[in-house]
Each structure stands twice: as structure tokens, then as C-alpha cells.
């Protein structure tokens, strides 16, 4: 999921606050719907399973998960922690609605995480974009747009 940075400057840089350290580059998976842990994701496959969710059936493993925030049961952090322990977790998290569920979830998932980034990640990052999440500096960089430079969007429908 990581690799050499593409040549040149990032296409776009979002500034926020890093809450879990580390730097990772991976494809973005963007949703405008808040994500539920319990009843919302399947930890064995790293897949969204909530029927009314716009990413229903989509796998987030190895992706930079760009989402508004967490909703639903307090099991949220435990479910995402389980994706880490099962090897199905996302590569990084970017979200702007700060809740105890999402913050603790990011910490125990142990993936680089940036919160409160501007401009709004949901409006500026698209699914399939190659992004770098720098949890040390609190920066999210869009390195390549979806469909450009041979990046494939590979959404796994595993349900």
C-alpha cells in the first residue's frame, strides 16, 4: 500500500491535526455517510454491512478511509481494533466530526489519522485518489486523482 511518492508537488494539501502518528500512502475510499461499528462493519472481511449505507458491501481494507465520523454503538473502537488484529483494517483514517468513538477507534486501530482537516476532505478527496496521510504533521495530500496515471479503483464487493 505504500510506495515511492509520485514526482512533483501534491495536487492538493489539506491541513488538520494528526491524532495517530505515522505516514502512509494509499487509495482513498470516501463516504458522506457516518460509519457504524457494531452492525455496520464485518471485521473478518473489512466490509461495510449496514444495508442503508452508501458503501454497503464495499471493502475498506488497505484504503484511506475518508468519512464524516462514527455513529451507533460504543463498540465502534473495538470493532475497528478487531480489523487491525484480523488484518482487515484501513490504511489510514481522515474524519472531521470528533467523537470519543472515532478518536479512540483511530488510536486502537493504530493507523495514521488526521482530523479537522481543511478544506473539507469530503468535498475535495474522491474515491480512488492516491493520498498521503501524515499523522505526524497533520497533513493529507492528494498525490494523484482517480483514474489518472493508471491507478485502478478496486472496490471489492465481498458480500
Amino acid at each position, binding site marked *: 500500500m505504500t510506495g515511492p511518492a509520485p514526482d512533483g508537488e501534491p495536487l492538493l494539501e489539506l491541513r488538520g491535526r494528526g491524532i495517530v502518528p505515522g505516514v502512509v500512502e494509499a487509495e482513498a475510499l470516501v463516504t458522506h455517510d457516518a460509519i457504524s461499528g457494531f452492525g455496520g462493519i464485518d471485521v473478518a472481511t473489512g466490509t461495510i454491512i449496514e444495508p442503508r449505507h452508501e458503501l454497503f458491501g464495499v471493502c475498506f481494507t488497505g484504503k484511506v478511509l475518508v468519512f464524516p465520523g462514527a*455513529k451507533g454503538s460504543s463498540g465502534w473502537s473495538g470493532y475497528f481494533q478487531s480489523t487491525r488484529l484480523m488484518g482487515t483494517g484501513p490504511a489510514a483514517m481522515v474524519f472531521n466530526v*470528533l*467523537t470519543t468513538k472515532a478518536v479512540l477507534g483511530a*488510536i486502537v486501530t493504530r493507523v495514521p489519522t488526521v482530523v479537522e482537516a481543511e478544506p473539507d476532505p469530503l468535498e475535495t478527496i474522491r474515491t480512488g485518489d492516491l493520498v498521503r496521510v501524515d499523522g505526524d504533521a497533520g497533513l493529507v495530500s492528494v498525490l494523484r486523482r482517480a483514474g489518472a496515471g493508471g491507478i485502478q479503483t478496486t472496490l471489492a464487493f465481498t458480500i
Partner: protein
Amino acid sequence: MFLTDEEKGMRDGAEGEAVAAAMDLLIRYGDALGAERLVETRNVAGTMTQPSPAKRRLFEEGGWAKAYAVINLDCDREIEIPRMRVPTCQLQHGFGPDAAGLTKYAPESIELQGSAESYYSERGVNILATCTPYQVGNLPVRGEHCAWMESSAVVYCNSVLGARTNCEGGASTGAASLTGKIPYWGNHLPENRFATHLLQADVSVDDFQEWGMFGYFVGETVQEARPAVIGELAQPDLADLKHFGAATATSGGVELYHIPGITPEAPSLEAAFGGRPAPEPIRYGPREREWVYETLNGQGTSTDVDFVLLGCPHASLDQIARIAYLLEDRRLHDGTELWVMTPRALRTMADRNGYTRTITQAGGRVLTDSCPAMSKAAPPGTRVFATDSAKQAHYLPAILGIEAWFGSLDECIDAAVTGRWRGGLS
């Protein structure tokens, strides 16, 4: 984040490695939240005993100490787990021995949970084994700082009891148990406890089902915000508010609401908004009520009901009594199961009062510790289930891939006795 000398000592190992790991997690967590400091708590409700594939693997690698370190403290070092520093209870977990053999739930998981119960109860964890600790001996007082998990318990704790907790997780409660500390953030701060939205019921909210439906609308509407609700609200009881809050925390992420004149921090509408003018109300009328009903009942086509689930959140003694009265001298439909989930302490009372016998004679079961959603298991062959719980109707179809009907207790009992769903919006 500011740390007291005591907290710095904990971080640096003055009270042992487990406490140091707990403080390290609390510091990472508090810093990430942007909390200024920690606050003392002597009331933790978390989860340690619930089996999962990841937990089993950790237990097999290094015993319960390893499972607690990794899952409840986010720590990979080998550490001993001491007695909990402050009163701590275990919330609902997996099925217990009373549910053995009733579903495909693995007997090994029941055994694993029993082993965990022994380990953790020796370390001072009270195994209440319910999503409603406030029903069985953990009743925080107004203003008390708590560290609770379980969204339906959190919203009850903040709203109905006026105690203060965020929606914590397995790691933050694990760390709070060993330190008696939790980040002073969010719902702990008085200024964050005033209402942000006003919702007005223009239809009568006067029974268990109506409170659940109104709650589902409120959660969908305000998401994580703090609603005050007014309008045609009848005096609610414990079960009504247990259902209402669980629903707000299911369709949304409500952790605190106010009902002026009813809940303790809102003696008046003005008080609910902290003296600021209340915004224009969002209306809950016949159309919105119908939307909720159709949403919760949009997950079923077959009216042949295999399974009826009551007691989400765990049933009160009063609810169990009503179920028993409705089942007196009746018999469940052949091929339809009925379960009532309740805390073990209330099951004991239900046994003593004869409610369990009445329900059992009709063919139903009174079970404890868990629920089909938590344990991801229903009676074998279940295709269609019915429930009086908005929360369970929301979650179970996604978790088990089954159809759902949502209605009143009377409709659910009718479905259990006839095997048919004949409910409808009155």
C-alpha cells in the same frame, strides 16, 4: 494535556506496569480529543468478557492478561493485571450457559466467557452482564463522572440520571478501571450539556412503541447533537425512556437529551437550553411517524414469523410481568420461538414471582447476559423475526441477514402465538 503529579506518577510506573499502560492510553486519547485534563471517576461500565475471534487468539497466546493488555489497554507488553482500582462492571456480553444449545452459538465461546468471568471477577469486575446496569445495582447519581460504554446505557446515564459520561470504548474503560481517570471532555463539561436542537411531537407519544419510534426519528434528525423534546408526551416510565434513548443512539449518535419537566437537568425549556433562546422546533407529525414505521418495517416481506425477540435493551421486571400476563393460558405457535432478554438479577426476581414459569409454560424463554445482536445468533432456521425494539429491528437484519417486523408488545405476542405478523400502524 495537563497531568497531576499523581497522574505523572502513574504514567511513569509508580503504580505498576498495567497502570502505566492505562495512563499512556488515556494520555494518547485525551491529547487526541484535545482534552485539557483528566477527571476522577469511580464508576466504570465496560466490556472484557465478551468472546471474539481476536480475543480468543490473544487468550491462547498469553492468557487473559494478554487479552486485557491488547484489547483494553492497547498495549503489546506482557503485564500483570491487578485488581481494578475503582468500581467496574461488565456490560452485556455473549450468550451464557442458559442459552447453550439454543442456537449455533459456539459452546466454546460460552466456555471461554466463563473463564473470563472467573478471571475478571477475581480482579473486582462485577459481572452485571447487561446493557442496563442502571436496572441492577449501578445507579449513578446526578453529576457523577462515569466512564460507560453501551450507547443505550450512556444516553440513559446522561439524560435520565443526570450523571456524566461520554460514549467510551473497550480501551478507554479498561484504562479508567485501573486508574480511576477519564478525559475531562465532551459530556463531562457543564457547558456541553445544554440542548442544541428542539423537537416537537405533534402526535401523541404515549406508550413503549411510540417512545421508540419518536426516539428513532430524533436520532435520525439530530445525529450526534443534543435534542430537547417537547409536545404531546405522556409521562414516560423507565422502560419508555430506555427504549427512547436506545433508539436515538441507533439511528443517530445521541448521548444526551432533555425532556423539560421530566429529566433532571431540564426543569424547564429555558434550562434545557442554558438560558439561551430555544430554536424553532423540528416537527414530528403523522408523516414523520409513518416514515419511522415504514423504515423499521421495510426489512420484511414474509409474514411468517419464526422468532419473537423482546427485551432490547434488557427487559425491566415490569416488562417481563406484562409479557407473562399476555401469555397466561396461551401457547406459542409450533415453529415460532419467543425470547425475553433480561439481566440475571431480574431473571431471579422473575423466577421468584412466577413470571418465568408462565412464559416458559407458554413455550417461551427468559434468557440473560446477551441478545441475538450481541451474540450474532438466533434460533436455527430463523428467517423472519418480530420485535418491539426499534434498536433490535434496526441492527438484527444487518447482522443476521434476516427479515424484521417492528410493532407493539401485543402485536409481538400475537405473532408468537399465531406465527403470523398482523401488525400495523394504528
